[in-house]
């Protein structure tokens, strides 16, 4: 049974449409990440699931029960806020037990639940401190403790890691993942960080302008993005887009892109091509992730049969240590290619690039949808 079902959900603030026709089905034990740029409506959606925002139209069901008009406390949810929202005048112990206290849970059960969660999150030593005496990471743990102590049907996380510094964020990310693997609780997690989405999610819902653009497993979202928005949003550095045209190359389907400063480069498409490819002359956009565009090497051919080659001048080189990113010019476009650190190009070099057409995406130039 689905743990969370959203059906044709809409939300308007006055005349502003914030969410439009949201349909999501979250299975029990799943970790679903809502990801998108700020203003995409993801936090509003979470607040609606929590019952903190009203529903304009549509349905929200938690564990099969319609909760549109159920107050937050009766929805069987727990939430971790971006600001942690720890009660400043209470100790860590008071913060964690406040919910049970409100619900009239017997003291003995409270103590047992507190001990369990404190051990799980290793915050036993902090129980008598006030939130003001805790570091960012500790506050984060306490906020999670407050949610975990409830054992609810649904966990909601609203950008819980965005107030932490980069290093701690990565640590806590791993910790959240471990926790979820251990407890297997249904979770809806909001973030604007696509890396968090990729690493944590069992399924990702990419949101933009109040709509779910794609709802799929991370691999799918990354490899077969539903449209150019998803393709550009997920992945860093982001996917390169090059305008192209459908052509035929010796009778076989191919696309042509503008050359560096010369004739068009024809790139054969791997077969079978999708039925929706369309006729010759159709204007499309070629999407290539930087890691699928690299220095040509004969050995690459062995496991990549759909390799296309092209030449391009290198304009900027950006070593990151593990690898080197380079901006190369392709026709009128600048694209980013990824190189092994020991095969890094130099500025001004005309490098022969290998483009893995099996991994490339084609988008319609008009609708921006994946072909």
């Amino acid at each position, binding site marked *: 049974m689905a743990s969370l079902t959203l059906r044709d959900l809409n939300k308007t603030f006055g005349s502003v449409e914030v969410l439009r026709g949201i349909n999501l089905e979250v299975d029990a034990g799943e970790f679903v990440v809502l990801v998108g740029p700020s203003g995409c409506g993801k936090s509003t959606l979470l607040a609606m699931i929590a019952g903190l925002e009203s529903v304009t139209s549509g349905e929200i069901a938690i564990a099969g029960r319609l909760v549109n008009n159920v107050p937050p406390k009766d929805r069987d949810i727990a939430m971790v806020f971006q600001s942690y*929202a720890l009660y400043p005048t209470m100790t860590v112990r008071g913060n964690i037990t*406040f919910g049970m206290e*409100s619900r009239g849970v017997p003291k003995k059960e409270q103590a047992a639940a507190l001990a369990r969660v404190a051990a799980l999150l290793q915050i036993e030593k902090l129980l008598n401190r006030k939130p003001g005496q805790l570091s960012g990471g500790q506050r984060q743990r306490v906020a999670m403790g407050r949610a975990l102590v409830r054992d609810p049907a649904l966990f909601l996380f609203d950008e819980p890691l965005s107030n932490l510094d980069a290093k701690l964020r990565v640590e806590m990310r791993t910790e959240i993942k471990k926790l979820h693997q251990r407890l297997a609780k249904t979770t809806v997690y909001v973030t604007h960080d696509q890396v968090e989405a990729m690493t944590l999610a069992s399924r990702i819902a990419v949101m933009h302008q109040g709509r779910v653009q794609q709802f799929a497993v991370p691999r799918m979202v990354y490899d077969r993005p539903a449209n150019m928005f998803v393709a550009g949003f997920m992945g860093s550095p982001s996917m390169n887009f090059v305008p192209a045209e459908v052509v035929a190359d010796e009778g076989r389907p191919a696309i042509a892109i503008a050359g560096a400063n010369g004739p068009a480069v024809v790139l054969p498409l791997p077969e079978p091509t999708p039925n929706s490819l369309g006729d010759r002359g159709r204007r499309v956009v070629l999407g290539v992730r930087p890691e699928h565009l690299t220095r040509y090497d004969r050995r690459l051919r062995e496991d990549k049969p759909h390799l296309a080659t092209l030449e391009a001048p290198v304009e900027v080189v950006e070593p990151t240590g593990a690898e080197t990113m380079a901006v190369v010019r392709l026709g009128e476009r600048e694209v980013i290619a990824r190189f092994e650190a020991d095969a890094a190009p130099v500025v001004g070099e005309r490098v022969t690039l290998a483009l893995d057409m099996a991994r490339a995406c084609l988008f319609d130039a008009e609708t921006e949808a994946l072909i």
Partner: protein
Amino acid sequence: MAEALRYDPLGPSGTWHRQRARLLVYGLLTLFALYYLLPLVVVILNSFRDLPDISRAGLIGLPSSFSLSYWPIAWSKFCVGGTCAGIAPFFFNSVAMAVPATIISTAIGAVNGYVLSKWRFPGSELLFGFMTLGVFMPGQMVLLPWAVVLGWLKLTNTTAGLVLIHCVQGLSFTTLFCRNYYVNIPDDLIKAARIDGAGFWRIFRKIVLPLSPPILIVTVIWQFTNIWNEFLFAVIFSSGTHQPITAALIALSAGGTSVHQYNVESAAVLIAAAPPLLIYLFGGRYFLRGLTQGALK
């Protein structure tokens, strides 16, 4: 380097310049402090002088006599409007008026502020705007309506009537203070508590109130001082033995003998002024802190 970073608005350059500027500022401050304190000093001195001394050297003269006897007279023996029980009964009238009125108006203001900041509803901002209008409404404007209302409620010339007036008149201020303070409490706290299963009153008691001492101290000091010192309503809506001390002071200086007992009157004035003064002395620290510190971490 560190020396250059230290900004001193009083010092353009050089030790001598700084010293001179400082001297000037402190001199001015002392002068003004004296200017404001002088009346108080005169009244205090007069409360210990005998009458011949006062009439000989004038009110603003250096004392040549000293007696502690005028204070007890002012407290419990002096004749005001026919009865000779001193100002003690009126003092307690004021206590019976100011304490409940302060507590009730502060409590209602806190709940108002909580609703207007954390449980907004359509039109709540407008309502708040109207409530704050009361801050600017002069007391004279409401004298007649209050007279009518007190008549309806049969509370004319009672302490309860004055308590009611001060509660209602003070609500604008207490609501304004509390609402503007509570606005700075993060909404996420309230949301978290709602998910945690707490309701309206539980959130107020367990989360909002524990964060409130700074603003409650400000509100209590403000309300108590204003209600205690209030004169207009006191003198209009009470008479005889029901008068608060501010109104009784007038009766004290106006009635009785033709000779002004400046020493006893001075002592009475000081007794009347003592409670707000003491409150300010003990709570002033919190008052200033509460007024300036809006946000909380």
